[in-house]
C-alpha cells in the first residue's frame, strides 16, 4: 500500500498543507492521472464514511420515527382476521407478556415514553444562525447546549414553538422545575403546542415517579391529540 500517498490525501482534505506543498500536490493532481484517480476514490470513501457514521444518530432517530408512523398507518387500515391457530399463539403471547410485565415492570418508566421529536425550524428561509445552531444541538441531543441558545432566541422571537422546544430541552437536561413552568405557560395558551405541553407535564410527573399526578394530567388530554395512542398506552400501564 502506498502509505505516503494516503497520508498526503488526508492532509490535503483537512487543509493542513503549507502553500507550497499544496501547489505541488495540485500540480501532481492535474498531471498524474493515476494519482488523481486514487485521490478521487479516497475522497469518495471519505464521503461514504461521513454518511455512514456522521449521521448515525439522526438515522436511528429517523428509523424510530418512521417505524412509529408506519405502524400507525398500517394498523389503521389493517384488519387481520385471526385464523383458528392464531388464537393459541395470541393467547400464549398474552400470557408471556403478562409474566414479563408481572416480573419486571411494575411501573412504567420515563425512559420508555421519552421520545423527543426532531425540531425543524430552519427549513424556513428566514432562519438565522442561532436558530440553526439550536436546532442542530436539539436534534443531536445536546440539550444543555441548546438551552442558552433557545433563551437568546426567545428574547426577540417568543413563539410557542420555540417555547416548546426550550421546555423539552430543559426536561431532558433535568431542569425539571423550569421545564414545568414553561409547559404550564403553554398549557394555558391556545397554540398547537398546548396538548403536547400537557403530555410533557405528565412526563415530568412520570420522571418524578409521581404516578397519581401523572395519571390525573393524562386524563386532561383531549382524544384528538396527535399522539393519543401514547397517552392510552401510558394510562394502561399506570393502572
Amino acid at each position: 500500500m502506498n502509505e505516503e500517498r494516503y497520508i498526503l490525501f488526508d492532509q490535503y482534505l483537512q487543509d493542513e498543507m503549507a502553500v507550497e506543498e499544496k501547489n505541488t500536490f495540485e500540480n501532481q493532481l492535474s498531471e498524474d492521472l493515476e494519482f488523481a484517480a486514487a485521490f478521487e476514490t479516497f475522497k469518495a470513501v471519505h464521503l461514504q464514511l461521513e454518511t455512514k457514521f456522521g449521521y448515525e444518530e439522526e438515522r436511528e432517530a429517523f428509523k424510530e420515527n418512521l417505524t412509529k408512523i408506519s405502524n400507525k398507518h398500517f394498523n389503521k387500515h389493517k384488519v387481520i382476521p385471526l385464523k383458528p391457530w392464531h388464537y393459541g399463539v395470541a393467547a400464549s403471547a398474552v400470557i408471556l407478556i403478562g409474566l414479563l410485565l408481572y416480573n419486571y415492570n411494575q411501573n412504567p418508566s420515563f425512559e420508555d415514553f421519552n421520545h423527543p421529536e426532531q425540531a425543524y425550524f430552519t427549513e424556513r428561509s428566514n432562519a438565522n444562525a442561532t436558530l440553526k445552531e439550536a436546532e442542530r444541538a436539539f436534534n443531536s441531543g445536546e440539550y444543555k447546549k441548546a438551552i442558552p441558545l433557545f433563551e437568546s432566541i426567545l428574547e426577540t422571537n417568543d413563539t410557542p414553538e420555540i417555547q416548546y422546544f426550550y421546555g423539552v430541552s430543559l426536561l431532558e437536561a433535568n431542569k425539571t422545575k423550569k421545564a414545568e413552568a414553561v409547559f404550564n405557560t403553554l398549557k394555558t395558551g391556545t397554540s398547537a403546542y398546548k396538548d403536547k405541553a400537557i403530555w410533557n407535564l405528565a412526563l415530568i410527573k412520570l420522571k418524578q415517579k409521581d404516578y397519581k399526578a401523572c395519571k390525573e394530567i393524562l386524563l386532561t388530554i383531549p382524544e384528538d391529540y396527535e399522539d393519543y395512542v401514547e397517552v392510552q398506552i401510558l394510562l394502561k400501564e399506570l393502572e
Partner: protein
Amino acid sequence: MGKIKIHPDQKYIEGLAVNNSAIIQEIYKKFVPKVVFYIKNNSGDQDQAQDIVQEIMILLFNQAKANTLQLTCPFEAYFFLLCKRKWLNELKKTSNKGVTITEDVGSINESGLELVEQTEQFNEKQQLFDAMFLKLGDKCQELLKLSFSIKSMEEVAEKLNVTYGYVRKKKSLCIGQLTQWIQENNNFKSLKNN
C-alpha cells in the same frame, strides 16, 4: 453537471432528510396505498408491503443525506417504481413457484427512470461499501467509526488512549486500504459520480 430542473416534490426528499414527521405522514397517506395495492395484487401481503416501503424510505433518507438526490420527476412515480422494482426483486429471490405479475398503469418518464436507477446504484454501492468496511481489521473499523462520529481527532485519540499523531496516520491508512480495495473492484467504478 448541467442545470437540472428540480421538481417541486423535492420537498419530500428534504423532509425525509430532516426527519419531518408531517412529510413522512403525508408520504404514507398519499403514496403508500398504491404500493400496498400493487404488492397485494402481486403475490404479497400487507406486512411485506410495509417492509418494502420502510426499506425504500430508509434508502431515500440515506441518499438525501449524501446530497445526491435531486428529483426531476414527480415523487409519486419515482417512489412507486422504486418500491415496485424492489418487490419484484424480492419475489425473484425467494420464489421458485411461478408468480403472476400484473403490470401497473402508472407511467414514468425517462428522467424518472434514470433517477430510479441512480437510487438503486446508490444502494448497491452502499452495500458493497459496507461489505468492504467489514473486511477491515477491528482496529481500523473502530477508529474510523469514532473519527467520523466524533470529528475531533484529539478526542478520538483520548478515547483510544493513543497519541494524536497515531490516530491521524492510522485513519489515513485505513481509508487508504478501503480506497485500494475499491479501486480494485470494478463494480465501484462510478462511486465518485454518485
